[in-house]
């Protein structure tokens, strides 16, 4: 007997997908197409008229040294956050995976930072590391380091990496923990009998078996750093000092909202869109293929 329900006609199926389609069209396709269209236009200084300029916005973008600097900043920022948030999360997950007392409380508490809004997380970290007010800045300055994220670009970047990492560890932790729990206990026991110590077991058995999870999280984390750290950057450094923490996304905002260059800003958005589409495509390709068990 056929178990599937059959729906005759098109009305009901269309109605069912309509809400989802409406949201996607209104909040994604429409703004995206606007951005693409806008990236070929140049507005006058008062926003009264615009003219079609073809690829001129893109060309001038790649002539700006600031754009390359934002690329480098983004690359540094995302690789640091990806490295630290993945490795810390993996370390915490391996510990949480052991049978420890209070393990449940430990796991719950580790997930909390994920619920904190980016801007609030940013403010939190400013207060802790503010050169004059910060509780944690004081011992650093007392140790003889001239800690000042307001003036020193490296310090500002460190602060951003800390806050962005802290916020994303929870997410990575959850996935790593699930990944670890999916590894059959007996495989690890077989490793123990085969003479591999805990470290060797981790690097030769557990870590390779986690690689699909790690790869997935790497892509997700990079996407997170690219796009969702905007709130943290805006709250903590505002892209400063002197544009030293301006990432690609922050530059879209800075050039468009603050600089009034809507065409150039739109061109940057389009480039970012291409990057994220590429990352997602790579991820789907590999995650689908690399199923281990």
């Amino acid at each position: 007997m056929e178990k599937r329900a059959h729906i005759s006609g098109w009305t009901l199926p269309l109605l069912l997908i309509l809400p989802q389609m409406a949201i996607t069209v209104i909040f994604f396709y429409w703004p995206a197409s606007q951005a693409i269209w806008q990236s070929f236009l140049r507005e006058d200084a008062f926003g009264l008229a615009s003219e079609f300029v073809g690829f001129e916005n893109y060309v001038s973008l790649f002539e700006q040294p600031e754009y390359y600097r934002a690329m480098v900043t983004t690359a540094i920022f995302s690789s640091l956050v990806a490295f630290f948030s993945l490795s810390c999360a993996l370390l915490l997950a391996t510990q949480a995976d052991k049978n420890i007392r209070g393990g449940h409380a430990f796991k719950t508490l580790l997930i909390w930072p994920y619920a904190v809004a980016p801007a609030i997380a940013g403010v939190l970290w400013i207060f802790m590391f503010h050169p004059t007010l910060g509780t944690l800045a004081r011992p650093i300055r007392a140790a003889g380091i001239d800690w000042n994220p307001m003036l020193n670009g490296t310090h500002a970047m460190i602060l951003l990496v800390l806050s962005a990492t802290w916020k994303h560890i929870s997410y990575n932790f959850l996935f790593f923990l699930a990944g670890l729990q999916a590894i059959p206990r007996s495989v690890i026991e077989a490793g123990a009998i085969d003479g591999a110590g805990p470290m060797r077991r981790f690097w030769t058995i557990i870590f390779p078996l986690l690689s699909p999870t790690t790869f997935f999280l790497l892509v997700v984390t990079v996407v997170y750093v690219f796009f969702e750290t905007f709130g943290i950057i805006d709250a903590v450094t505002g892209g400063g000092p002197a544009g030293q923490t301006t990432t690609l996304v922050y530059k879209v905002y800075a050039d468009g909202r603050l600089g009034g260059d809507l065409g150039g800003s739109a061109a940057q958005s389009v480039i970012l869109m291409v990057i994220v589409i590429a990352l997602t495509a790579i991820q789907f390709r590999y995650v689908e293929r690399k199923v281990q068990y």
Partner: protein
Amino acid sequence: MAGVTLDTVRKIYAGNVEAVKGVSLGIEDGSFCVLVGPSGCGKSTLLRMIAGLETISGGEIRIGDRVVNQVEPADRDIAMVFQNYALYPHMSVYDNMAYGLRNRKTPKDEIERRVREAARILAIEPFLDRKPRALSGGQRQRVAMGRAIVRKPQVFLFDEPLSNLDAKLRVQMRVEIKRLQKALGVTSIYVTHDQVEAMTLSDKLVVMSGGQIEQVGSPSEVYRRPETRFVATFIGSPPMNILPGTVEGPGRVSVGGQVIAVTDMREGLAPGSAIEVGLRPEDVQAGGAPGASSLAMDVDFVEELGATQLFHGKVAGAEFVVQASTGQIAAETRKLTLSIDPGNVHLFDPQTTKRLGRV
């Protein structure tokens, strides 16, 4: 090679659950010891304690002359075959087998030699470059065995290694395991809940129940002279029939008023006291005339097994099964007379469930 000695070994889990209640057992060097029992009897826990995967709550485990209670699994010089094979999914068959040797810093050419040899013995040479997921269940099982034998350990441990295979393959692998163990002469401890596997593989059969050993012996000893009612009904298929009876006098018991003779009966049992009478379905002669030592049976239905038939019914109100060669008795028969050989009657104490045989 080495024997394994267990001395009042206990396992108590958190919450005071005693999974293994003081088990003592000596396993001779080179022998094949099978631990058999229903699920939850503590057999797997015991094996995992020997492997070092579970801590020992009490007692002592020795491999050879060495007490291994505090020794890491890696240093116990054992190899284990798991129920789900536990192959490393990301490594090739070759690497799966070489892993333990590499961890022990064996020279490369020695690893190569040993892996090739094990692969040859197990006929898995064509698969050495494949990943485990590209193998069938039986091939994975062989790889798991290969991983154990390349190490040349003192003891092999098997944790229900055949239970994930289909029936035909299980029989085939059972024979291969036995042959391999005989050829290598390595002390082996094998856990199973399947009594046929237990009977066919073991030199030494250990029947466990409720965290304790019920009986230790050769398969034929355990089959012929079960020490408790549990062993009597667990070993043998179909299981032994147990009938309620009373003691009539020396060498005589009655079941529902029908008196039968018994060879192996404890002396000095008070006439009139209750006793349990055990009869194996295959030890009873069905279809004779009522005689000096016979029982009447009402048949309910017949199961056809091909070469034999199983007659299900009741004797003196208790469930009873008789096995007979096909064609010996008409399947429509509803009343059967069972002739009982006095040498085939097992007696048990209804209270302690222990055997009431000659001391």
